[in-house]
């Protein structure tokens, strides 16, 4: 297992390099000049040149990239073009909101998806199964931002159970944090749980037909033990793979749902950075998000190895 983790960590290095080169190239290829946005139309040519020089935009592409890379390795992702905020600080400041939202929605997705999937698989073609399949279809069809708006208008505006907008940091007020995150997490998590429920159902139905389930029942194991210890553990093998993709999708979805609930997370930071062509900021956000996704995939691989002996390196 340690060997596996080591291998994965090593494999991340070239991947991160490729991602950084790609984002660096894309931002360098942009047709418009960020300097125009910074000083506006009124600036003289000299001012223009001064700013370019100060931001290092006159250096050749390779020099700029290596320069940036050298500092990024030390944890310094540069400074925003528009204010003197350091990119690392800005991203880390916004990260907790986005990650809370992502992981709360992962939790909802897993609980609802597993519950519905297992319930459906235990009684195929029953009303529970039909309801779960119907719900999954609806859940997959509804866009999460629209669902978010509906939830907000019903539970925040009409019923006033939850705040309609804003984010309360966990450290400040745990209850406020929970309330502020419930609706956006539901909007994200429920639509993702649909795909998960389908996956769980089909994996579970497949496993329940295996002879080792019959053997376990014949040995006199309780249904609970058969379902949770024998069936679910094996059904989770394909589910974990799907879940790792889903977490990535949820992270992307969080950036959008943040807008609906006016949560100051990575989403609004990224949108502002793109609009202003704040190249260091875009770079930094992409790199950190890629790191998070890689972390999730590493965790998935570890969990996968734990539940599936075949995936373990010999």
């Amino acid at each position, binding site marked *: 297992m340690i060997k596996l983790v080591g291998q994965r960590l090593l494999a991340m290095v070239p991947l991160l390099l490729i991602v950084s080169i790609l984002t660096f190239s894309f931002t360098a290829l942009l047709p418009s000049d960020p300097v125009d946005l910074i000083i506006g139309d009124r600036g003289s040519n000299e001012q223009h040149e001064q700013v370019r020089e100060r931001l290092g935009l006159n250096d050749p592409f390779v020099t700029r990239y290596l320069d940036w890379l050298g500092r990024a390795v030390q944890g310094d992702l540069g400074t925003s073009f528009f204010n003197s905020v350091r990119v690392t600080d800005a991203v880390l400041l916004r990260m907790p909101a986005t990650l809370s939202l992502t992981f709360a929605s992962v939790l909802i997705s897993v609980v609802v998806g597993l519950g519905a999937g297992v319930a459906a698989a235990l009684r195929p073609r029953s009303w529970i199964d039909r309801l779960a399949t119907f719900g999954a279809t609806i859940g997959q069809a509804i866009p999460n931002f629209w669902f978010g708006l509906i939830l907000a208008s019903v539970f925040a505006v009409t019923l006033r159970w939850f705040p309609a907008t804003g984010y309360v940091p966990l450290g400040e007020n745990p209850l406020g944090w929970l309330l502020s995150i419930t609706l956006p997490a539901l909007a994200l998590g429920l639509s993702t749980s649909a795909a998960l429920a389908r996956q769980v159902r089909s994996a579970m139905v497949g496993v329940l037909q*295996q*002879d*080792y389930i*019959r*053997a*376990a*029942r*014949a*040995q*006199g*194991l309780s249904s609970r*033990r058969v379902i949770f210890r*024998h069936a679910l*553990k*094996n059904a989770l*093998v394909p589910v974990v793979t799907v879940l790792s993709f889903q977490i990535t999708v949820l992270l992307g979805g969080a950036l959008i749902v943040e807008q609906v609930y006016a949560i100051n997370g990575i989403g609004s930071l990224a949108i502002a950075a793109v609009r202003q062509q704040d190249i260091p900021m875009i770079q930094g956000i992409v790199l950190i998000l890629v790191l998070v996704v890689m972390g999730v995939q590493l965790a998935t691989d570890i969990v996968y190895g734990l*539940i*599936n*002996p*075949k995936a373990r390196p010999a």
Partner: protein
Amino acid sequence: MTDPLLQIEDLTVTYGGRSLLGLKTRGVDAVKGANLTIRPGETLGLVGESGSGKSSIANTLLGLVPASSGRMMFDGTDLAQMKDGYPDVVRRKIQAVFQDPYSSLNPSMTVEQIVTEPLKIHATMTRADRRARAAELLRMVNLPETHLPRYPNEFSGGQRQRIAIAAALALQPKLIVLDEPVSALDVSTQNQIINLLYERRDATGMSYLLIAHDLALVHHISDRIAVMYLGHIVEEGPADRVYHQPAHPYTRALLDAVPLLDPERQRARRAARRAAPPTDLPRIAVQGCPYRHRCPRAIDRCRSESPRALAVPGGGTAECHLLEPSGTTPPAQQTTPGAKGPASNTPPRKEPA
């Protein structure tokens, strides 16, 4: 004679037949009025084509499928009455080994966990005792103790089946249901597993219900053989008698399905089989003999009247009108010579009683 360990009387197993939106759907009888007896230390071979109800009997006996009617007296308790699963005292006396060792072992459990799981549920043992017992069980099935921490995917089919047998032996059951235990294995491995099963039975005095479709194998290992067709037990008796002197036309057809070594005889037999009525006939016989559609010797009476189980000379019973003293010639005399398995050497012909 010793008391039977298991006595199945008039057992019927019906699938489906639930009421749906007020409409009653008629279920399918997978087993109809079956009678079987297994004595302690005895092996009963149950044969028949797929869909004949062999596995339904196994599943019912294991408490996986409820019995619709009838009795299953096992060691003093009627299992057919226990609709909500068996109590642990009964459960630990009946264990099972299934056909496909690739699907019958949980891939996420180690050999030790698989073998000791029955002990965890049914016996109060310390961890160390369980581990010692697991090692002992592996030795019984000729596997080294070092396999205990390994996972099923690291083993071959034969080794996996040994592990499955070790798990079935864990609680020292009185009866093991062997549902096609070797048909998924290659021939050289089959022999090892059969010998292992023999050895374990002789060492412990337990009984086997062996379900298989290979009559030669069943004859080899069983004391008695029961033949099933469409949910009915059409013939039952001592293994040698059933194998060498089949009384029911269906048993004969099963034996004829074993290919002969002599190509001339095999050709002649194939020609005879082609001349026989097609086998794709309605499978639901409401009245009359269930085999009458395929039987080459069916008479008018077979259409109207269900045959009773009649005693066969040499032991056992068969459900065939042709065995009645007043009936027409018994089937054994009408069949072509040499139409038996390769092991049969001109067996004595059975005379009409």
